[in-house]
């Protein structure tokens, strides 16, 4: 499952990563030893050492076989975080948490759309499930809630702008658009998400 999601995101964005996300999975004990909190069912662990960035991904055992859209999206979020951090590290660029979260929200939408065969049917329900009927974990702080809510809002704004490209089945334009978006820097990307004109 993780390998498939990674392949899908890499193909969509035209990325070529030498890393295999599934090789960086750790269990709860290892996650805690690496400084993780295990508060969430998905957690990317990052440490900056002398030899560069070290990454590990914790996924709760229940996510190994996702049964619901929500669980599937948690896995996508973990893979998205991993790939985006690896991508920005390669570009020697710092990444902000808001940017990381907003990108993951967009990635969930894109993976779901492509897995449904890039068809317009069911788009309103998908948008609602991903961006409107969202509940945040009780353990989050106010600051974290604010950040997630804003990331969700920015991603929703962008996802809605992608809808015409999906409805007209313009896969080539869709890929060109999302590849352009993926490579934007933090400020430019958030400004791009926030703007209102069609993609």
């Amino acid at each position: 499952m993780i390998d498939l999601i990674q392949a899908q995101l890499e193909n969509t964005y035209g990325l070529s990563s030498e890393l295999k996300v599934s090789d960086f999975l750790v269990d709860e004990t290892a996650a805690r030893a690496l400084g993780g909190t295990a508060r969430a069912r998905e957690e990317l662990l990052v440490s900056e050492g002398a030899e560069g960035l070290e990454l590990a991904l914790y996924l709760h055992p229940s996510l190994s076989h996702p049964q619901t859209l929500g669980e599937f999206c948690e896995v996508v979020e973990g893979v998205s975080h991993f790939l985006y951090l690896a991508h920005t590290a390669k570009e020697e660029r710092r990444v902000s948490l808001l940017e990381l979260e907003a990108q993951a929200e967009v990635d969930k939408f894109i993976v779901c759309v492509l897995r449904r065969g890039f068809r317009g049917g069911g788009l309103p329900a998908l948008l609602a499930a991903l961006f409107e009927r969202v509940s945040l974990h009780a353990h989050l702080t106010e600051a974290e809630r604010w950040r997630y809510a804003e990331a969700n809002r920015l991603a929703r704004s962008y996802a809605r702008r992608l809808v015409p490209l999906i409805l007209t089945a313009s896969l080539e334009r869709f890929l060109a658009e999302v590849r352009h978006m993926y490579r934007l820097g933090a400020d430019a990307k958030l400004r791009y998400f926030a703007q209102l004109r069609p993609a």
Partner: protein
Amino acid sequence: MSQLVLSGSLKEFFRLMVGEVVKRQRVTIEEITEFYVVNLLSDYAQAERLFDASVDGRRDTEPLALLYHRALQQERDERVRTLRRLGDVSLYTAGFFQPSLQDRVVGPDYYMQMGRNAYAAVAELSSGSSFSAVYQELGLKFASLVEVLEEISARGQVATGPEGQLRVFERWQRSGNERLEVVLLEAGMLPKGRLPN
């Protein structure tokens, strides 16, 4: 109204106006918070303080998302300044430009949420300082303060003449907002006796 305009400085005008509207709307706020709002209004009455960028020759404000994003990456002192600006811009925009926000994808609720969160965050970051309580009150009573500013904006528009009066009238027709009704009633735009005692 004319007395207020003639009363001297812009700050004095807003001081009287805020005091009057706060009292009328029965909003309970500390004097120092009221003073903060007065300063905010007189600062932003000078357009260049609100608008901070020139896009295609047009003045514009930085999107709230970018202000927020910048704040997240700053050290404490700078972060406080940016979050305060985020709270101020949200409050002023939600209060003074509410009608134009209704037609945007990002509506008044978004400004309310960002403003409330920003002031709450500033209160937390400056806890222990004498201003913390002001920001806390600004966050907690954000919605009431937006309504205060909305009425001040309407009163200002009505005072500019027929065109402004018409705008307020149209807004009242669309929304049925009772505060706007009072403003129009006092300006003689509506026949007396419409409101229940």
